[in-house]
């Protein structure tokens, strides 16, 4: 056994360092506790906001669907406005809660096996009417025989939905949007998928490429912009990609459309 002898100054410094360590540990625990409390608070607020909204939307839909008698077309239009506004608010509340959970490192993955193709199909089907309304041309290209994913299907669909939603929002009527899925890199043991969501829309200046992933970022405040959101969508999408050990980035310039890419390392089910 080796004995180390310290002089008084060294012993004092060691004591002081140990005290600082204890203080740091205490502060870290306090911060974690505060983050957990904040998330719990947001979670409670979110539930409390959602509940009366649910009642408003259900009443609206009872009227719209003619359960209490047929409405005139103008009455239907007005009630549909109430429902649409309510549903938009619900989505925003959901995003705020997801973001808060991500910030507090409370997001976990519920992995199941599925094909990227099925997730893409699901998201395209959900956006079908918006795409038709804006007369956009949607193209989907999926490389054959891609490996099955073992990932969180809801979160992958959320990422795709967010990117496709932005592509639709920021592309003028008659433009093109597309989703491509391919192998980014493969070895005998590991595969990485590359997913691209692109559009011929207004584009993003290179100096704003990182800004768009920051929470509450607003790059374009022009009146032509028809986007309604919390400013959290891309921050959440990046968080979800990173939870899967992937990377999300954008390639774009003003006026040339945007191409968002993310990678997904393929894991096998245990």
């Amino acid at each position, binding site marked *: 056994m080796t004995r180390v002898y310290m002089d008084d100054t060294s012993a004092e410094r060691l004591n002081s360092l140990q005290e600082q360590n204890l203080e740091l540990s205490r502060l870290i625990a306090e911060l974690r506790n505060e983050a957990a409390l904040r998330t719990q608070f947001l979670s409670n607020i979110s*539930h409390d906001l959602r*509940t*009366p909204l*649910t009642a*408003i939307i*259900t009443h609206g*839909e009872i009227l719209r669907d003619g*359960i209490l008698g047929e409405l005139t077309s103008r009455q239907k239009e007005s009630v549909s406005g109430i429902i649409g506004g309510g549903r938009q608010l619900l989505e925003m509340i959901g995003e705020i809660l997801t973001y808060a959970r991500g910030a507090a490192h409370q997001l976990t993955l519920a992995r199941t096996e599925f094909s990227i193709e099925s997730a893409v199909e699901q998201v395209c089907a959900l956006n079908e009417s918006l795409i038709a309304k804006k007369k956009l041309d949607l193209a989907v290209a999926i490389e054959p025989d891609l490996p099955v994913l073992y990932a969180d299907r809801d979160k992958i669909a959320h990422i795709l939905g967010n990117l496709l939603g932005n592509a639709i929002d920021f592309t003028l009527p008659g433009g093109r949007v597309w989703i491509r899925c391919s192998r980014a890199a493969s070895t005998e043991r590991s595969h990485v998928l590359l997913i691209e969501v692109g559009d011929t829309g207004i584009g993003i200046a290179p100096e704003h490429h990182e800004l768009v992933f920051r929470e509450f970022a607003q790059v374009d405040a022009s009146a032509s912009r028809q986007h309604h959101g919390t400013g959290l969508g891309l921050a959440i999408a990046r968080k979800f990609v990173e939870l899967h050990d992937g990377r999300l980035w954008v390639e774009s310039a003003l006026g040339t459309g945007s191409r968002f890419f993310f990678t997904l390392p393929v894991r096998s089910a245990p």
Partner: protein
Amino acid sequence: MVPHILLVEDNAFVIGALRLLLEETGHRVSDARSVAAAARVLLDDPPDVVLLDLTLGNEDGLTLMSSIDVGRGPLPIVVALTGHDDVATVERCTAAGCRAVLVKPIAPLKLKGQIAEWLGGRVVA
């Protein structure tokens, strides 16, 4: 016999909306705002379908499942109502014995259709 639906929900506005919908579409409706109140309805006036909110104040709605007495007549069909249908929530509800998980707000015509489908396969109490 008119189907009997028990709404287990703690918000008066949501109860009001669902009661209106269900009564207008030919159902008899009871409501309960806590697990204890719902358990009493299960004993006194057994419903055909239970629409069960997962969050009842500080209570977990799924704790009601242990009050369902398998010895007494046909079991009610229990359907969970929730704000999120993520995999974990669906698994928890299915494991507890729920027939389905519906995300609020539920489209009225869809709920009406689903109730008819659930009850179609059984004799109404």
